[in-house]
Structure formats: C-alpha cells, structure tokens
C-alpha cells in the first residue's frame, strides 16, 4: 500500500517541480528537493525520501567548462584549506567550482571553506549544490547539519543529520559520531539535533544531565584575528 503511494509520489514531485515559478533555475529546484529531503528525513519518511532522491537524480547536471583547470584549482584550494589559509582557499575553490560546476568535491570543500569562515548562507548554498549532484554524500549532509546547527535551526539540523546517518558508509561509525555530538557538543542546537536524530532511529544514547561546556571559551592568541565562534556564544555570563 505504502509502496504504491510512493510510486505515485515520484510523478507528483515531478509535477511539483513543474509548478515552481518559471523563472526558477535548476539550482533553485535542486535546493527545493534538498529541503524536501531534509524534511522527509526529519519525519523518517524513507519512501518519500527515496522518491525525492530519484527525482533529484534525474535533474539536469551542469557541464564542466575546464575540468583540468578546475582539478588543479581544487587541489590548490584543498591544500590551502588544510593549512587553514581560509581566504586563499576560498578563492581557489570558487575558481574550481566555476570552472567545473559538476566537480562534487570542489563544491563540497567550497561549502566547508564558507562554513569555516562563518559565511553560513554561502556554505549552505554550496553544500546544497554538492548534494544536488550527489544526494548520498554523507559528509556533505553532515556539514550541512553543522551549518544549520550554527544557524540555530534544530529541525533542519535533525533532517541533515538523519541523512548523514542514512547515507553513511559505515552506520555504526555514524552512530558513534552522533552519540559523541549528543553527549559532548557544547552548542545546544547541534547537540539537541543529534539527540533527536538518535531518537528518530531508536538508537541508544545517554542524555547528559549537565550540558557540556566549551573546553575553550574563546581563548585565542593575543595577536589572532577575532572571529565569532560557537564556543564564545555558548559561554554564558
């Protein structure tokens, strides 16, 4: 019965895409589907999720303009990101994703760079583009959950974490990661989202009585650039 309903859901979703404003670009449609996947995951609606995923898989994919140049820029950007040279990394990764908008890794790392720079709307957009190309990319779902956590959006953080678990290559590892966040994360939204995700899947977890505190409440070298951190926000007066 339910399967039948879900088979019917696929064309319905396709029609849903059709009723989007004519001016809506593919990117907007993809974002819509990613949001659908988040919402369905938060409701633990596996069949609906699969149906949306299928629609997303059929959406047109961008073509590379300069795949070789993009690869070189991506490698440069990744190395810079690992050295924590965030601004330079961002420049290189933007170049990579513009040269090859189908390069999933470049887009994923671009999202990471934006998140590290606390540019959350841009991080969200890059990660959504990543997921539109590869909806089962657990790492990107996880980073998107962190973005929503930083935006204090528990509901969407739960959906993104639920998809992290759903698409994890090793679910037991993902389970432990979720438990770690649920028990030790100082930021309330992400911790509560991990807790809700574990409950969604009926996985065991010990709820901390005393919420964890940041181990480093904004301590940084005297000459470092001031950057708003989650830890600083968590430290109450």
């Amino acid at each position, binding site marked *: 019965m339910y399967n039948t309903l879900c088979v019917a859901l696929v064309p319905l979703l396709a029609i849903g895409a059709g009723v989007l404003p004519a001016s809506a670009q593919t990117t907007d449609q993809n974002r819509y589907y990613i949001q659908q996947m988040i919402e369905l995951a938060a409701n633990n609606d596996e069949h609906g999720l699969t149906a949306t995923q299928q629609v997303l898989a059929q959406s047109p994919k961008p073509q590379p303009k300069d795949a070789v140049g993009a690869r070189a820029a991506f490698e440069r950007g990744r190395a810079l990101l*690992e050295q924590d040279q965030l601004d330079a990394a961002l420049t290189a990764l933007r170049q990579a994703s513009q040269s090859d908008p189908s390069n999933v*890794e470049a887009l*994923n*790392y671009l999202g*990471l760079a934006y998140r590290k720079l606390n540019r959350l709307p841009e991080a969200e957009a890059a990660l959504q583009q990543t997921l539109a190309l590869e909806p*089962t*990319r*657990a*790492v990107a779902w*996880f*980073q998107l959950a*962190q973005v929503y*956590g930083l935006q204090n959006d528990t509901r969407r953080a739960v959906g993104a974490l639920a998809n992290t678990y759903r*698409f994890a*290559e*090793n*679910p*037991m*590892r993902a*389970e*432990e*990661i979720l*438990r*770690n*966040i649920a028990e*030790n*994360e*100082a*930021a*309330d*939204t*992400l911790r*509560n989202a991990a807790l809700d995700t574990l409950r969604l899947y009926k*996985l*065991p*977890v*010990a709820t*901390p*009585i*005393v*919420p*964890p*505190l*940041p*181990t480093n*409440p*904004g301590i940084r070298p005297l000459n470092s650039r001031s950057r708003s951190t*989650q*830890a600083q926000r*968590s*430290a*109450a*007066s």
Partner: protein
Amino acid sequence: MKPSWAVLVLVVGLSHLASAGAASPYETINYHVQQMIAQAVSSDSTGVQAFREQLENLPRPKAGDSAKARPLQQRGLEQLTRNALKEALATFRQAFIADPTDPEIASQLARTYLRLERFKEAERLSIYTLSLAPTHAITWLGLGEIYGQMGDASRAGGAFANAYRFASDPPQLTERLRQLATIHPTEAVRASAQQALQTIKTTITPQPSAAPVLAPKTSPATSAVPPDPTIADTAVTATHPTEPFPNNAIPLSAPSASTQEPNTANPGQRIYRQSIPRTCLIVTSRNGKTDNLGSGLLVSADGLVITNDHVIEKADNLAVKCGERESTASVRKRSKQPDLALLATSLKNGESFIFNEAYSQDLIGRDVFVIGNPYGLEGTFSTGVISGLREIDGVRYIQISAPISPGNSGGPVILQDGTVIGIAAMVLKKGQNLNFAIASSEVIVSGLFDPARMQSRPLVKEP
C-alpha cells in the same frame, strides 16, 4: 549433537532473505550473531559454524585510519587502567571513529560501555565487533555479560559458550567464566556462566581461529564517499569533558584527613584537592537551551547546594555537577538580598563544606582560595587575600583580591583551614582585583541556613 542439515538450508534461505530485504547492515549482522547464539544454546556446532561463515561473508566496511586510531587506543587503555571510564569512552570513541574496522578498538569501546552500564550501546558495539571478527572470544564473553546484566540468561549462556568455543586459550577462558559464575554481582550473569561451564564440559570442542581478525573487505554495495578529512570535523565543536578531579579527595570534616595528604602538598594544592569534589558547576537552561552558568557549593550531606540567586533567576531547568557527580536540581529557597539560592539535588552521601562564622578585622590579610567556573572553565582555582570587610545595602561582604569572573558567581571563597568564608558574588569593574563575596556569617543568619543539616565553626587562629 547431530549435524543439522535443516539448519544449513535455513541459513542459506534466510541469508538470501536478509540480503534481499530492506534490513539495515546492523540488522543483518545482528541476525547472524543472534543465530550463532541460538545455535550455541542448542549445542549445535554445525549451526554455529554455518552462521559464522555467513557472517564472515558479509561485506566488510572500508578500512579507516589506523595510524590515527592506535595512539588513541593506547591512551584509552591507560585511562581504563586507572578506571577513568568517561575519559576512556571519549578516547575509544575517537579511536573507533578514526578506524571503525579495528575489532580490538570496537571491542574495547563495547567493554567500556559495559563498564559504564550502558548495555544497549555495549550490545550494539559487540555485535558490530563480531561482524569484523566472528571468533573474537573476548567480545563473545563481553556479550554474554551484557545479556546477563540485561537479565537474558539464555542468550548470555549462548554467548559464553561461543566465547569458549573460539577461545585461543580455553583454560584461561574457563577460569574467567568461573570467576563470572562465582563473583559477578548479577544473578543472571552468574547463572549463565555456571550453565556455560556445565555445557562446555560435555559438548563444546574449542575451535580457536588461526586468524580471528578478518581483513577488511570493501563492500561493492556501499556508496562511494571518498575519504574526506572533513568528517573528522565532528570534533570542530564537540568537546570532550576532561575529568581532572582526583577520586581520593579528603573529607574536610574528618579531623585526621589532613594527615593523609602528602607532605609535599602546599596549602593551595591541599585546599584544591579537598574542595573540588564539593564545588559545583551550575548550568541553567531556558526554552531548552543553555542559558547561564555559575558556581555553587555542596553544604549538606543530603545534597543541598548554595549559589547566587542571580545565577538561577531566569532558569526553567537546573543541572549541577559537583566533582564527578551530576544531578538535576530544584530551587528550595532563594533571596534577592542577600543574593543567595538553596538548591536541592540528588547528590547525597558526599562531603560538604563547613561555613566559617567569622566576620571581624582578624580576617583581613588572610589567604583565601577561590574555586569556580569562570566562563565555563571548570574548576578554576585562584588565590588572594581578604582585602576588607564591606557592608553594602545591609549585606555583609568580604572584599578579596583573588580574581573572579563571570561564572565564578556562587562559588566558595575558602580559608586555609578549608572552611568557607564567603560566596563569590560581585566584582568592581572599574578597579583591579576588587572582588566581593557574601560573608558566610551573612549566609548563616539568612533563612537559607539550616543548622540541623549544615555546619559552621568559628575562626581558628593561624599558626
């Protein structure tokens, strides 16, 4: 024991069902492990062997970063040795996240959960471990203990039987079962270990595996998520509470306690060690979010905690952590003037602070020690002297030079004899080290102090 062809047919048939159905990887693994247990309970070696082979043929997860995991594993083992279970859990978790294909690490994580009495997690990790290494005898033993603790003597017995079956050193395993059968506090564990000992005498031939740990095989069915350093970014914001507090704190109320301190400990070290288990972190929440934090102190053996009223004034919920112990809390009494609140917690049978009744010029110049959680930096210890006595809006304060910051509010200001002379409350922002604590004498005359439950004593002359 008879060869069970029916079981073989069942194994083949059900394993196809399991792989064809929508079962999650864990459910599939669990199914095979439970079958191995069920066959062991029936003393059916052929059945155990058949399901073991099925388990071995399941897709293996992709190998992790063993170079990163191994040092963490070593650290976890050291923490287990000194019984620092929460620390060990955090460390083994990190090791497991780094390399989820190492059965030793997975097994140690499972056993840590077991020691923390988190049986569901322990069970899941044990079953997962057995998917990596179906003949891992220690994991079977642990799984038996888990089922015993959960009151499932039958499955405990099956798991124990498999532990013996796959033991590389059967006499040693027998000895461990004997220990479980005699000294384990849980009846079901003792009974099932006893049962297993009787069964293995008559029916089981040990089959230690030459290669108990299987090499990881990559599953062709798994999604091609490339190894990505960003997943390790889990820890970007996740924190790992450290537990620097010694378990062997000396009770202040015991006169002989100070003699137990090593001679090398200076007064500050002695005060810190004595006071940290009874100094509290107070975390308040509002609308489900962490709202404020402060400090407090245990003042009675039945778990009463004193703090400042301003720490808890807007809270929906309260949680306290005193030393290693945690509890929710409720407000028993509170007052704006003086700025004090009394909280009830479940932290009973612990040591508590003794108030010092003094409020005189004799105090000025005396050393004081402050413990608290400024900006959430738990258990921060600072020292200074009593700089003066002030009465502000009819409340007696002790002015101290020991640094305090937001988060110290409600924490103890302690004299060298270990008694509490004040409750940290205010700072004068304009100056330097002009900090104020509500005098203990003020606490004693307030309606919060209950002489039947809390202790106080006069000032002792310093040597």
